[in-house]
């Protein structure tokens, strides 16, 4: 198949390859279907970006893309690339501006049928408690510069120290909510300043807090291990490192653009600016990126704690009655040093996941003991009107994708078109008719984020399932949403 001059060779129904040519150091591989290629991929530059990523010095095996691939900056969204830590590079373009944007899902003892008349009140109370939207601040007192530096080093463990996290919350967060080697000395004063009043804020755009109900279970054993049952109320939180992370990305793009000239790299896109992992520039970015990642984990932990308090107030129940427990927290914008098998040898690589989720298999030493028998939970949010999924990681993911899977639906419609389509309509009523209560800062965000602006996440998840990369465990349906 030829798409916009790019040759795609079918490996199987759900996997397509761009053969190596020109300056590509490895081939490109995209998990997608023929219908998705024809309906979405031919309309943007994402395939070109898969090719561009294949030019990165030290890239191993393939420049990969997950089925939610779409046009990003430098890397496509949904892009995965592993670079050799001895001879390869690290690129902020492989992480994105919102460092450690991610998702967490917490379960409760609540049953939808017993509380469905209270969903509107729950959402209103959550909206009052959790700062959302542009310029939002004040979830917890504004941090001073010493306190924020503690957050950058400790991640979720900072929340644990102040009583906002349990031991179990920490264990059930990827990397235990804290990447080692985060040194605030590599973070600019400007980035620190942007983060001071943003701990515990949701932000705007596609970030959200959802009240979901478990609608369908695909794997009873795995669902049981995760503590899921049909009709159960869950809380899903999607946000990242806020202004602090955006500023770190911005600061280091400039540093690495200079480094690119210094090291003589000629890459096809400025947003792929990079430096050797083992260089002053590369190590500085990696350390600063870890600071932002830790800030993001703490951010989601603070929001989860505030959500728990809000639910207890709204329903006038005790903590044990609510049974609020973190299932798992995953990041989907990150670069991490991991060991993977390449050409039969174990090798340390820097895995860039840009709009991609880690998906480690059963028995991985890097997942909580409680999930050893089933694999790491993989959390895949959809749009706010239809559904989201919980899946589990597999050994196929380790073999084929450096232990990575998809991260969400991806837009099919620009914000401008979505706004135009929503004009003159009562979108809040439309969502209510779909069974979703919503609280948002303004109608503009609701209009931009309506379900029709997104791909059907079920198609994305099915491609990963049918490829054996992640296996479906449960489908969730939103019943209440908070947007910024």
């Amino acid at each position, binding site marked *: 198949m030829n798409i916009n001059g790019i040759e795609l060779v079918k490996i199987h129904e759900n996997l397509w390859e761009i053969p190596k040519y020109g300056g590509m150091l490895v081939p490109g591989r995209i998990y997608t279907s023929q219908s998705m290629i024809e309906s979405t991929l031919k309309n*943007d530059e994402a395939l070109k970006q898969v090719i561009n990523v294949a030019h990165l010095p030290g890239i191993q095996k393939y420049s990969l893309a997950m089925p939610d691939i*779409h*046009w990003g*900056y*430098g890397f496509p*969204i949904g892009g995965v690339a592993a670079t050799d830590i001895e001879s390869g590079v690290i690129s902020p373009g492989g992480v994105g*501006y*919102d460092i450690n944007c991610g998702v967490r899902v917490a379960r409760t003892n609540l049953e939808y049928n017993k509380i469905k008349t209270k969903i509107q009140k729950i959402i209103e109370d959550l909206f009052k408690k959790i700062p959302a*939207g*542009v*310029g*939002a601040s004040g979830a917890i007192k504004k941090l001073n510069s010493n306190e924020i530096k503690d957050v950058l080093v400790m991640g979720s463990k900072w929340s644990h120290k102040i009583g906002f996290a349990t031991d179990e919350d920490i264990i059930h967060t990827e990397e235990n909510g804290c990447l080692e080697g985060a040194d605030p000395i590599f973070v600019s004063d*400007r980035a620190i*300043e*942007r983060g001071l009043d943003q701990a515990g804020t949701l*932000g*705007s*755009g596609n970030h959200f807090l959802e009240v979901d109900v478990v609608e369908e279970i695909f794997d009873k054993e795995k669902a049981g291990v995760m503590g899921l049952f049909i009709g159960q109320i869950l809380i899903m939180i999607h946000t990242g490192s806020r*202004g602090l992370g*955006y*500023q770190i*990305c*911005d600061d280091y*793009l*400039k540093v690495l*653009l200079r480094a690119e000239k210094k090291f003589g790299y000629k890459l096809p*896109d*400025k*947003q792929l*600016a990079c430096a050797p992992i083992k260089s002053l520039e590369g190590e500085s970015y990696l350390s600063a990126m870890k600071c932002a990642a830790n800030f993001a984990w703490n951010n989601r932990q603070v929001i989860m704690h505030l959500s728990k308090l809000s639910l207890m107030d709204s329903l006038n129940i005790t903590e044990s009655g609510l049974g609020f427990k973190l299932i798992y927290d995953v990041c989907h914008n990150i670069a991490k040093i991991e060991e993977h098998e390449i050409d039969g040898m174990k090798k340390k690589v820097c895995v860039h996941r840009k709009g991609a989720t880690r998906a480690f298999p059963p028995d991985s030493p890097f997942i909580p003991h409680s999930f050893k028998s089933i694999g790491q939970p993989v959390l895949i949010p959809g749009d706010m009107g239809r559904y989201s999924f919980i899946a589990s990681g597999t050994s196929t993911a380790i073999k084929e994708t450096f232990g990575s899977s998809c991260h969400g639906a991806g*837009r*099919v*419609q*620009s*914000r*401008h*078109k979505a706004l135009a389509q929503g004009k003159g309509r009562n979108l809040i009523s439309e969502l209510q008719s779909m069974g979703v209560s919503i609280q948002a800062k303004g109608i*503009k965000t609701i209009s931009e984020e309506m379900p029709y602006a997104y791909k059907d996440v079920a198609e994305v998840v099915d491609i990963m399932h049918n490829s054996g990369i992640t296996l479906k465990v449960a489908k969730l349906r939103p019943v209440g949403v908070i947007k*910024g």
Partner: protein
Amino acid sequence: MSNYKFIEHAADIAVEVSGGSYEEVFITALDAFCKAAMYTKDIQASEKKTINLYSEDINWLLIDFLNEINFLIQTKKWFTINCVELNIEEQDNRLKLSAVLLGTESTDSSLIKEEIKSVTYHQLNIRKEGNVYSTIVVFDI
């Protein structure tokens, strides 16, 4: 001669800007940025602020300029609505931008239309064709 036009972008905001000089491109890009980021009609500008920025590349300088405006909004709560003076000159093998901004400080977050994460390098390339300088600028939101 200076002008801007928002163009379709699936996830973010893209704008095509043009002008008769680098300075005009920068001022026009600022106008587009303000239009995208703030409800400027609701802002009563009463203060002036001088900024000086340095860069080795004209494209990077444009990013630094717009990101400076974004930082002022997001962190200092200082809302720029216009630029009353803007000069770009070469100094010590670098480009120096000096600008006098017109704006005001406000804690009213409802003045912010869109939280812009950053101005990106994506598709940014200031080119001269005839007497017109132009480029695309993409804001990540």
